[in-house]
């Protein structure tokens, strides 16, 4: 067992490459900002997307490490320093999310519709009063945003800093003592409830409120699981990279195998959460909930299906076998897919909603929803919206809106719908496709949505949302419908930033905690898998 090469050196060449990556990221951000709509939606969504994704990766690295420490896990001692260093990125995340928070205060962006200065949430008698957002304004406001984003991040960072300091201090202790071990356990165990409770609020505030009318109790856990996989996949890639540079001789196939099991297991868990959230919403067919998936399935099919393909099908099929989890090449490949896949998942959570928010911002700025040039049915749909948002959650006579529906359906060459949701859903889908295809019909999808909500006897907010994002936010647009080259560049930039910070942290201490009580266990870790042609399953040098 080679425990000599335990000091990582962050070489100049690596630094230059990573700085190059960051420059590319900045360039791409500037490029998107220059080529953007008036609210710089593409720029800001890219910024938010990557800031949240990489910060959440750092958080989950720390959270997972805390869970492992609390559970007396010994196997992971050899890779503990990697997670500790990843967790420190929350400090940078604090700055990044802080910029988003400044944007909220200064109205620099329209990522969050609830923060739109033109939004009417105070005067119920005015025509465009948004009852739903008004009801949420106790939570969706700049003060709470600041607390739940940078406030919570600061708390998490403090814990992660303390855990790291304790762990490093252990290396230098002279007499064998369990003091540091015990202290670290205390920090780790107390981080679990703190991280567990606060992360839910963090994700509601930072991600879910991008679609301010929509809600799902599962959302926070879903976003957490997604970040967890991003974190695990990045861990795999970092381990393999460091090994290729001659470090981490003590990390064997068996360690990689166990991280691989986590990637496999948590991928299935993520899919489980995905399925529960989707299936329950689909089954109940409640307008204000289905709109989230309807929007994504109809207008963002590549995002929707790509998400499942990369985050479920690929890791599930590839990692099912024992031997694939022990091969560096295969594991790197899967980790790359999963890492990108969950970046994609965050893209999918943010972009469609933010795009609608920007569109709504424009409409509000132009004096409400009375856009000129829309056909009559469209304004009918808007009337529906107004009626709906003024009547609090009561059952509607959907019949009175039927003529509007009929007209618009006629326009889209669809049969007149009846009260069955199924029909409406189909009609609406076709209508939307028609609109994006011949690029004329702002009205058609608007009506479809509007009447559909009326059929549901729903509660206005979706009708509002649907009517508002009728025209523009449904068509193909690079950087929203699918990630464009700039998005990839921005991701590389943020990844470089992450790695740069990570390597500076990694350099500050030994790559392995030499005085850790579990050290021997980890160095002799065996999964028990007997794979032929692997030289006994160990990577001894």
């Amino acid at each position: 067992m080679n425990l000599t090469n335990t000091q990582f050196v962050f070489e100049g060449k690596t630094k230059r490459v990573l700085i190059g990556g960051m420059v590319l990221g900045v360039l791409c951000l500037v490029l998107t900002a220059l080529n953007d709509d008036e609210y710089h939606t593409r720029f800001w969504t890219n910024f938010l997307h990557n800031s949240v994704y990489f910060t959440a990766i750092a958080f989950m690295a720390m959270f997972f490490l805390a869970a492992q420490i609390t559970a007396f896990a010994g196997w992971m001692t050899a890779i503990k320093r990697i997670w500790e260093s990843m967790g420190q990125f929350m400090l940078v995340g604090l700055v990044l999310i802080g910029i988003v928070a400044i944007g909220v205060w200064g109205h620099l962006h329209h990522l969050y519709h609830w923060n739109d200065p033109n939004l009417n949430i105070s005067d119920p008698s005015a025509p465009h009063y948004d009852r739903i957002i008004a009801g949420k304004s106790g939570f969706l406001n700049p003060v709470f945003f600041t607390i739940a984003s940078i406030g919570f991040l600061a708390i998490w960072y403090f814990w992660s800093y303390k855990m790291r300091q304790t762990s490093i201090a252990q290396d230098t202790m002279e007499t064998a003592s369990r003091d540091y071990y015990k202290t670290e356990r205390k920090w780790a165990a107390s981080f679990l409830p703190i991280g567990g409770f606060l992360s839910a609020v963090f994700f509601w505030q930072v991600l879910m409120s991008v679609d301010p009318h929509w809600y799902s109790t599962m959302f926070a856990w879903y976003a957490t699981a997604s970040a967890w996989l991003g974190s695990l996949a990045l861990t795999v890639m970092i381990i393999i990279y460091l090994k290729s540079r001659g470090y981490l001789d003590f990390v064997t196939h068996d360690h990689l195998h166990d991280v691989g099991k986590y990637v496999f297991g948590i991928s299935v868990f993520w899919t489980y959460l995905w399925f529960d959230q989707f299936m329950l919403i689909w089954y109940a067919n409640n307008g204000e909930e289905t709109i989230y998936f309807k929007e994504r399935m109809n207008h963002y099919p590549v995002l929707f299906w790509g998400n499942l393909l990369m985050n479920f099908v690929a890791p599930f099929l590839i990692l099912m076998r024992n031997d694939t989890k022990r091969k560096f090449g295969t594991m790197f490949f899967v980790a790359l897919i999963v890492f990108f896949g969950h970046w994609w998942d965050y893209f999918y959570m943010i972009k469609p909603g933010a795009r609608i928010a920007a569109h709504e911002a424009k409409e509000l700025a132009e004096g409400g929803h009375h856009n000129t040039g829309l056909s009559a049915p469209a304004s009918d749909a808007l009337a529906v919206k107004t009626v709906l948002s003024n009547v609090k959650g009561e059952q509607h006579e959907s019949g009175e809106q039927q003529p509007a529906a009929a007209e618009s359906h006629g326009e889209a060459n669809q049969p007149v719908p009846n009260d069955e949701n199924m029909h409406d859903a189909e009609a609406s889908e076709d209508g939307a496709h028609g609109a994006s295809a011949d690029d004329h019909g702002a009205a058609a999808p608007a009506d479809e949505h509007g009447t559909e909500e009326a059929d549901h006897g729903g509660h206005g907010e979706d009708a509002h949302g649907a009517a508002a994002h009728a025209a523009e936010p449904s068509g193909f647009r690079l950087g929203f419908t699918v990630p464009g080259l700039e998005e990839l560049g921005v991701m590389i930039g943020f990844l470089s930033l992450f790695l740069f910070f990570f390597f500076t942290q990694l350099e500050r201490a030994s790559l392995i905690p030499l005085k850790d009580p579990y050290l021997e266990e980890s160095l002799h870790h065996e999964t028990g898998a007997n794979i032929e042609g692997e030289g006994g399953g160990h990577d001894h040098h």
Partner: protein
Amino acid sequence: MSQPVAPVRHILIEGNKSYHNITEDLCTPTEKAPSREWIIAFSIASALLGLYIFAIIWTVWKGIGSWNLNRTINWGWDITNFVWWIGIGHAGTLISAILLLFRQRWRTGVNRAAEAMTIFAVICAGQFPIFHMGRVWLAFFIFPFPNTRGPLWVNFNSPLLWDVFAISTYFSVSLLFWYTGLVPDLATVRDRASGLRRKMYEIFSFGWTGSAKHWQRHEALSLVLAGISTPLVLSVHTIVSFDFATSVVPGWHTTIFPPYFVAGAIFSGFAMVQTLMVITRKVLKLEQYITINHIESMNKVIVLTGTIVGVAYLTELFISWYSGYIYEQFAFYNRVFGIYWWSYFGMMFCNVVSPQLFWSRKIRRSIWWTFFLSIIVNIGMWFERFVIIATTLARDFLPSSWSYYSPTWVEISIFAGTIGLFFVLYMIFTRVAPVVAIAEIKAILKVAGDQYIGPNASQGHAHKQDEATKKEA
């Protein structure tokens, strides 16, 4: 065996046992005449079982009208108890499958009893939907098979039918898994027995000889069953949660239900394991196999899952307000401040607040606290299901239908009776089979026992520290 074990690990087998001691200690309870405590406890459980049989006959004879369900509250104690028992079963599967994957060695002390508990709990759970059908002689209608009943056919879109499949699969796999583990131990009992008893154990141990081939097949089978059990831990309670969450009933239709039900199930399951183990280890004198360290580990699982459930409760509560949907808001307002407010507070206190006491090492390692809190959690998890079911139904969409529900003596008797059924089965089990898995305990003796022989064994540190704490306790 050559792998080192960290000196900070807890010792899992105490008392300087030899392999022979282990066989003696674990087989003896099946060979001796029952103790007085056992007879008294068994009599009480049998009396409750008698009450159960009486109440069931009453229900079948008189009809479901003898329960206090009405058109508004059409699910009451029956489904509450069903979900409660199903949840309790989860600890066994978690211990035998998930903790196996996580290489938790302490599972060997409790897995046998927990798996037995799973099976008995599922048996108890199954009673409720079966007898809620009313005409129980038509219960086979729930199975989709070609028949001459014309249009009467199961509804594959219904989560209630998914339950039929989920629970019967769960029961079969759990039973197989448990029995597979039992075979070598039954053979050990057989080898010590004589006469008719020997013949019986010979049949039940399937002629096990302990040959290398037998062990090889045994291990292959165990691995396959563990693989099948792992998704079952999630799937069963997920589908039970679908019974509620697929509906459009405010308070039921919430996407967090599946994982939160699973966490709650593990929570209640571990509480029941604690209740049983604290008694069993005392009565059968197994303190050296089910040590205070086992109890502490299980208490940690309880505080973890209790807190996860707490996150879910608060998430639901928050999102109901956040949704801006008045029916959802009302459903939760009604839960907290409505006519059944006491059950909501009981649930919150028992499930979220009380387990937090386990943050204290002293309380975690106290037998009395553990027993007391495990009962509290059992009660709390019953409240949870009652809150979800009765509270929600009592205030439905139509105020003119609003109603209040309290059980009749028949419903109470059936519930108390299933507890009798459960304990009768469990106590018979402790008489006929080793409560702790002999073969598995022997496998970890030199790794996690007080006779650890791996590298650094001379340091022996953990164990000294533990001895000290044990004396304290």
